[in-house]
């Protein structure tokens, strides 16, 4: 499968945290979610991919062509949006439109105005525009997303785009992802990070699970749902089932855990109930597993 971005031996070292070594390949033409708990390294990875910070070691390949994250050609093709404080706080939509126009060849002012309308925020055409510091986190993110979507890009790399949005707007964002991918006809891709996958599940084709600066698991969501199972049962069955569980939680009335699907027969023989996970339950199970290995 063709990849939009791939990395090998990627490391970023801080005094109290190290990301990596990471080696991965993000498939082209799909929506990829970077899923992990707070502090898992998602933002650091996105910052490296978008050239905000440089990796201490390792290489990244963009579009199968360039290995330079600072290459202007690469940056023209990447639509990036940070989680918070992406724009200076005193900027208004008109400043955002002007700066995008100065910085990028492929920014469409009219499209920006239209997208601002669709996302329910003021555009650069509004008579009275509020600066970013007067907007809520959600409206700041909507404005930033409108600006990013108003560019002609080949990949969107968005850091926690759904975290500050209300459920309705998250749903609309998922639709926007799908529209973007459909318009690309297999040539455009979306990469976004999240620690709450429940509302973004519809927009996720491929998942990269991260924990403690490492990649725990990667794969297409449908394949991962086949690879793992969710196990439930009565508490008296828990001691026997525990060895087969990757992660679990138990109380006096029930237990629940994550296991490999290949163990489903054994678990059923022990009297446990198994079912395919949702992306949300899979995420919780895998992140717990990563936490347990810490």
């Amino acid at each position, binding site marked *: 499968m063709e990849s939009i971005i791939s990395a090998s031996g990627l490391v970023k070292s801080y005094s109290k945290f190290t990301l990596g070594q990471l080696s991965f390949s993000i498939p082209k033409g799909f929506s990829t979610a970077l899923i992990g708990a707070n502090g898992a390294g998602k933002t650091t990875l996105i910052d490296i991919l978008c*050239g*905000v910070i*440089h990796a201490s070691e390792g290489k990244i390949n963009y579009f199968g062509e360039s290995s330079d994250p600072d290459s202007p050609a690469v*940056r023209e093709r990447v639509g990036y949006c940070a989680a918070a*404080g*992406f724009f200076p706080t005193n900027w208004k939509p008109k400043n955002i439109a*002007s700066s995008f126009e*100065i910085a990028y060849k492929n920014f469409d002012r009219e499209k920006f105005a239209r997208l601002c309308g669709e996302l329910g925020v003021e555009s650069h055409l509004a008579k009275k525009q509020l600066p970013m510091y007067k907007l809520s986190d959600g409206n700041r993110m909507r404005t930033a997303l409108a600006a990013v979507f108003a560019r002609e890009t080949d990949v969107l790399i968005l850091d926690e785009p759904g975290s500050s949005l209300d459920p309705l707007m998250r749903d609309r964002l998922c639709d926007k992802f799908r529209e973007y991918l459909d318009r690309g006809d297999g040539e455009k891709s979306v990469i976004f990070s999240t620690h709450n996958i429940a509302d973004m599940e519809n927009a996720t084709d491929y998942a990269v699970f991260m924990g403690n600066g490492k990649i725990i698991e990667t794969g297409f969501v449908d394949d991962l749902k086949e690879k793992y199972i969710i196990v439930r049962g009565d508490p008296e069955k828990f001691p026997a089932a525990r060895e087969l569980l990757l992660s679990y939680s138990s109380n006096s009335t029930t237990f629940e855990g994550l296991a490999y699907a290949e163990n489903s027969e054994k678990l059923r023989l022990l009297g446990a109930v198994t079912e395919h996970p949702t992306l949300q339950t899979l995420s919780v199970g895998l992140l717990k597993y990563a936490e347990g290995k810490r």
Partner: protein
Amino acid sequence: MKILRSYKLFSFGHRRIIILAAWFAAVAACGFTLKNTAAFEDFLSGFVGVQHMVIPCVLSIIALNGTLLANSTNAGFGYKFFRSLPNAEKHFGRAVLGGNIISLLGTAVVAAVGSLYFESMLMLKFSVVVSMVFLSIMNFVTYVENYFLKLALLMLTIGFAGGIVGFFGEQEFTAPNAVVLYTLIACAAVYAASLIYVLMNSGKFTRKERKK
């Protein structure tokens, strides 16, 4: 044009520049009103002190420090946007140069406003010299990361600017033209060196910030 566009990218400072322009206009209007009155002498001495304290410092802080902050991790807001742009380093270098041009224009405006009042051009040349010295200092401290040190240097700049004007106030009108000319040349050289320094290090600063 590219320089102005890059400067605009980093600093949407129209309002500040308009306020400064309005201030100059008000000063010019006051000077005209007071000319040929007893209060004009006092106005002149006040004008000389304030212009040296305000112009190099305020303009430079707006033009250069703002630009720097936009690209620094310490700013907390906006730096990710600036660093992710195509040709981010080039834009930053051009914006720093744009900041210098705006500051120099400020000096030119002060000279123009001052020329309305002073019969001798010596005082104006002196103004330009002082402005260039302090613009040079601003350039040299642009990349100082320690805020306390930077603030201390800026305070010293402001204080010395007023102090020097007061100290030399008596002699400036009698200084020989040649001395003023040599001083101008020397200050221009220092300023050129500071400009080269600040531009040469703009890319290095950006790269260093990205490694943090």
